[in-house]
């Protein structure tokens, strides 16, 4: 089966700067992939090459087995948002979408459908200059959805969204992928997408450093879980028995490494051990992400 996205030794050089350096990866249908790395890692450049906006120096990037520009009516296969602010401020949200729907030969009724989908129908006839950042994000998403695409590519979609907006986006992407469709979403903050994606690609200095499922990453980076219990010693034994290493903290809690709070909770329950506190050390995934991406290139 043809991968939805295939990048082969994709490379982009600007003068002496190697922005993307031999990047190879592929995406299967029905997956949500987080494309992660610090600002300047080459994420946006990669997406621009994938979408035909920039030409690779060498290598190639294919969507549905073809170069983006070769796709017949690409809006029906791929929806993409690269910048949340790509609107003429003096044009209404509806007219913005109508210019695009005309180019894709879609009916105006489809414009109203996507406006309802992103809950912008009330503001559709207002000029974009009066939109909040969250509304612009949703208008961008609406433009990507016009052609009812099979692949959604979003660059930093959570930027500037309030927590409610982030949750809305997460639910939306989950539902989108549940239909067997594919999402590639970039971010420079792992925590923003950690609850949405099922696999991650981490790049730094234009090179792929990690390609794994989120679970593998969690285990690999040693995310830890803080647990308090009246039977700490017994709990530590049970966890060690399950190949989960533990350390005792100064305030009489146990840190279980390389696992999730769900797993620790289940193990404790199965062993009949009371648990008074159970908390994933939320920052640890982010810390290791920072560790991975701040390594200097070899």
């Amino acid at each position, binding site marked *: 089966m043809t991968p939805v996205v295939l990048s082969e030794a994709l490379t982009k050089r600007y003068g002496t700067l190697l922005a993307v350096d031999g990047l190879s990866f592929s995406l299967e249908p029905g997956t949500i992939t987080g494309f992660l790395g610090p600002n300047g890692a080459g994420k946006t450049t990669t997406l621009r090459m994938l979408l035909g906006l920039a030409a690779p120096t060498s290598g190639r990037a294919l969507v549905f087995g073809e170069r983006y*520009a070769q796709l017949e009516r690409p809006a029906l296969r791929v929806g993409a948002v690269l910048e949340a602010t*790509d*609107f*003429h401020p003096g*044009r209404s949200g509806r007219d913005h979408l109508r210019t695009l729907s005309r180019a*894709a*030969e879609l009916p105006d009724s489809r414009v109203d459908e996507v406006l309802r989908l992103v809950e912008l129908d009330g503001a559709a006839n207002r000029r974009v200059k009066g939109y909040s950042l969250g509304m612009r994000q949703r208008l961008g998403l609406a*433009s990507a959805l016009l052609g009812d695409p099979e692949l959604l590519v979003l660059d930093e979609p959570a930027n500037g969204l309030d927590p409610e907006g982030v949750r809305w986006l997460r639910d939306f992407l989950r539902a989108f992928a549940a239909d067997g469709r594919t999402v590639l979403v970039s971010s420079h903050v792992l925590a923003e997408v950690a609850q949405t994606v099922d696999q991650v690609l981490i790049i730094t200095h234009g090179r792929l450093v990690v390609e794994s499922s989120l679970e593998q990453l969690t285990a690999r980076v040693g995310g830890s879980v803080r647990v308090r219990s009246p039977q700490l010693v017994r709990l530590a034994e049970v966890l060690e028995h399950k190949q989960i290493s533990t350390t005792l903290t100064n305030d009489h809690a146990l840190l279980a490494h390389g696992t999730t709070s769900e797993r620790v909770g289940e193990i404790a329950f199965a062993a009949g051990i009371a648990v008074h506190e159970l908390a994933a050390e939320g920052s640890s995934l982010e810390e290791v992400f920072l560790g991975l991406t701040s390594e200097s290139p070899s």
Partner: protein
Amino acid sequence: MIAQTSAEFLKIRSTRTTLGLLAGMIALLLLFVLLTGLLATAQSLSDRQDQLGLLSVGSLAGVFSALAGIMLVTSEYRFGTIRPTFLFTPRRERVLVAKLVAAVLAGLVFGVVGEGLNLAIGTVILDGRGIPIALSGGDIAVLVIGTLAGVALWGGIGVGVGTILRNQVGAVVGLLAWGFVAENLLFAFVPSVGRLGPAHASDAMTGIDTDHLLAPLAGAGVLIAWTLVLGLIGLVLTLRRDVD
């Protein structure tokens, strides 16, 4: 191609920029026609050349048509809408041709409004002041067709200039500096070369002053050549350049 052209035409219609340009054009045109028509002596409005001068003010619509063409391209780069535009139509030559066609159509509207107002007000003034029309039917046909075609082509030239320069301020300043300063200087010092410039070629199309300018048809040929050459340079650059 029809889909893309319709999309580009909607872009022109759906912001207030175009209305502002039309309003500016009408204000400037009224100013020139009324000043010339009412303040000039009857003597200096009597012969054919004088009257062609009064009735070809509408060709200044070409400036506004060109500005609309420039806006159609440069506002896409300025506001980033060029990204969704190329995502929806990744074959960039289609986008550029659609913009050219849409800008020429919009230019035609500018020309009809501008030259229409000019003719209506100009002939009413001449009539009101009892100055007999010294123009033949052929003169008026050349004037109207030449002005409309010239103003429409300036829309395409605006697209070419905007595509090459991309920067809105740079393209506007470049167009005005060329049209109102550089080309006039060139024409003043080397008329045989200056008359091949786009501004003088479009003046020639209205049929005025054929002693120094090209004949109307030759002017049309030169202006079409400018439109195509600028569009072609813009196309080559657009196909080669990455979009940020």
